[in-house]
């Protein structure tokens, strides 16, 4: 699925199953034998399949989006990483260690030191001040109070809320509250961020602003992030790779470009049909085979569409697409128009 070496993985899920209900083991056996109809399973066993055979890994420093509609199991997968939910079968590895093998104390340490979590509805404790909210994860680790205060203030500074520490959550707007949520997750300087639809409760403008801020922050901090969202645009903006889920299964994992340009299943295709491919097309996808003139300008296979258009608009007759010395093909105005036409026809 990806070519990183195993020890570079911050998070790894192997054949993860989660079935809710008393008769989960029977359902597991049935589902592994190929039964997939969730209504029939609910009827017969009274169980719900939350996650079905999910396998993926997230490289260190990568932002990995899990995207799907509500009830598709994306938040359930997320909660397996810090073992808020325990798997029915399969394993979850964090920094190479199986989270199910941890003792209670080790698990608490992992949650407090290594993993920060951001919640959909902020989940700030209303009876604590902002500073106490942010410092919570640090105080559980019993570091001294002064150090906790300082780290909390530092984290608040990162999200632009320095000086708000003595206020209470209900005195802040939704956007500010979620910044606090982010600060709380960052306070202990964890390796991994788990973000459970962090921006979906915010209005669109604030959401966009926070997405940008989050991207800027993560560019600096370089934290491995598992980002759950039901918003495809958000997934495309934020994720370096995206997993698309349906009914507990992962349909496809790939970069935003691959997902949009080469959907593997009908479901994914329908999902991404609203997204314009134009932004993701590059020279290699547009080029056609043919002769090129010796004076035609040479471009690389990854050259994005806008650059091609600009060059052709400057009066060049056609472009030669070359990967190193190998000729891939040529691009002229008809090819550009054909690409635009294909994109329009998709929608």
């Amino acid at each position, binding site marked *: 699925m990806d070519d990183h070496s195993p020890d570079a993985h911050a998070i790894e899920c192997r054949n993860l199953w989660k079935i809710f209900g008393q008769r989960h083991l029977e359902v597991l056996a049935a589902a592994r034998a190929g039964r997939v109809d969730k209504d029939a399973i609910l009827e017969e066993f009274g169980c719900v399949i939350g996650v079905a055979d999910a396998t993926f890994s997230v490289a260190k420093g990568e932002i990995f989006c899990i995207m799907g509609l509500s009830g598709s199991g994306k938040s359930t997968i997320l909660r397996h990483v810090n073992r808020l939910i325990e798997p029915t079968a399969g394993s979850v590895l964090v920094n190479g260690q199986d989270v199910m093998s941890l003792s209670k104390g080790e698990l608490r340490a992992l949650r407090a030191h290594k993993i920060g979590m951001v919640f959909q509805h902020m989940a700030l404790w209303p009876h604590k001040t902002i500073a106490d909210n942010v410092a*919570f994860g640090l105080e559980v680790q019993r570091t001294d109070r002064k150090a906790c205060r300082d780290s909390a203030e530092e984290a608040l500074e990162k999200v632009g809320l320095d000086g708000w520490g003595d206020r*209470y959550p209900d005195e802040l707007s939704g956007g500010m509250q979620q910044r606090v949520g982010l600060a709380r997750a960052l306070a202990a300087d964890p390796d991994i961020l788990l973000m459970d639809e962090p921006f979906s409760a915010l209005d669109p403008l604030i959401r966009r602003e926070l997405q940008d801020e989050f991207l800027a922050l993560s560019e600096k901090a370089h934290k491995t992030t598992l980002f759950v969202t039901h918003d495809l645009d958000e997934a495309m903006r934020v994720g370096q790779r995206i997993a698309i889920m349906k009914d507990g299964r992962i349909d496809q994992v790939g970069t935003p470009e691959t997902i949009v340009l080469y959907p593997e299943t009908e479901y994914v295709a329908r999902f991404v049909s609203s997204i314009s491919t134009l932004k993701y097309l590059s020279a290699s996808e547009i080029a056609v085979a043919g002769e090129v003139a010796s004076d035609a300008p040479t471009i690389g296979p990854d050259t994005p569409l806008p650059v091609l258009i600009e060059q052709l608009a400057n009066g060049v007759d056609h472009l030669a697409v070359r990967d190193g010395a190998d000729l891939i093909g040529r691009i002229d105005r008809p090819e550009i128009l054909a690409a635009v036409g294909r994109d329009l026809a998709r929608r």
Partner: protein
Amino acid sequence: MDLLLNPFDHFTIPFGFWAERTLDWFVGHSRGTLLSAKVPVQRFLEFVRDCLEAVPPLAGIAGMSIIGWLLAGWRLALTEFVCLTLIGLSGAWHDAMTTLSIVIVAVSICVVVGLPIGVLAARSDRFFRVLRPMLDLMQTVPSFVYLVPVVMLFGIGDTPGVIVTCFFAITPLIRLTNLGIREVREDLVEAARAFGASETRLLFGTQLPLARPTILAGLNQTVLLSLSMAVVASMISVAGLGRTVLEGIGRLDFGAATVGGLGIVLTAITVDRYVQALGAGRPRSRTGA
């Protein structure tokens, strides 16, 4: 034929007999243990009563008002001052102190026993399933029904009075502690876990503080029920305002009954406002001050 038309004239299940036998058996086997279990309650009660009696009324009124003022401002101070002065003026001071000491001891025991039970009930569905019918039963049984087994097990007097009051008054505290903890937003609990809180820390740092308003409502009910039990408990020779009321009723002395009743109401207000102020803690954020 009569057998079919009136079957219950011929066949009955001797519940009463069974209950009597069970109680007899229980009394026979455990009276000694129960009587010694009574001792710490008795000591506690005597201590509290001695403390309350040792304070001269005027000093008591002044002290309570000042503490009230420090705790929650002049409003509480004024309430305490008015209520306590009225109690004194109606000539019920000593009876009120006796009742107050019984209520203080009963409520303390209710808190010490009821709060942990409520917490357990909130954490275990199975435990709550067992507990719920018992709570229903305890709340349905008329208050004076508790008197019979308590008298048989513990005798008569003030200490059995405290015990019977506890049985009667503890249910709302258990119920509302359970409810309050269960009502804490799931994601707030999850967040505490996600940031590495232990179960103890989760309970004391997140669940109990957030459940506090509901638990306080339960405590309020417990306090009021303990006071309302004063009259009933006086049937097993418990001293205090309840006895004044009971004697008043017995002799058709409307005046005495009124004085006792008024005293109970005033004591109720005094205690309840105090408990609420103690529980409300420090005023919070801009709305509090």
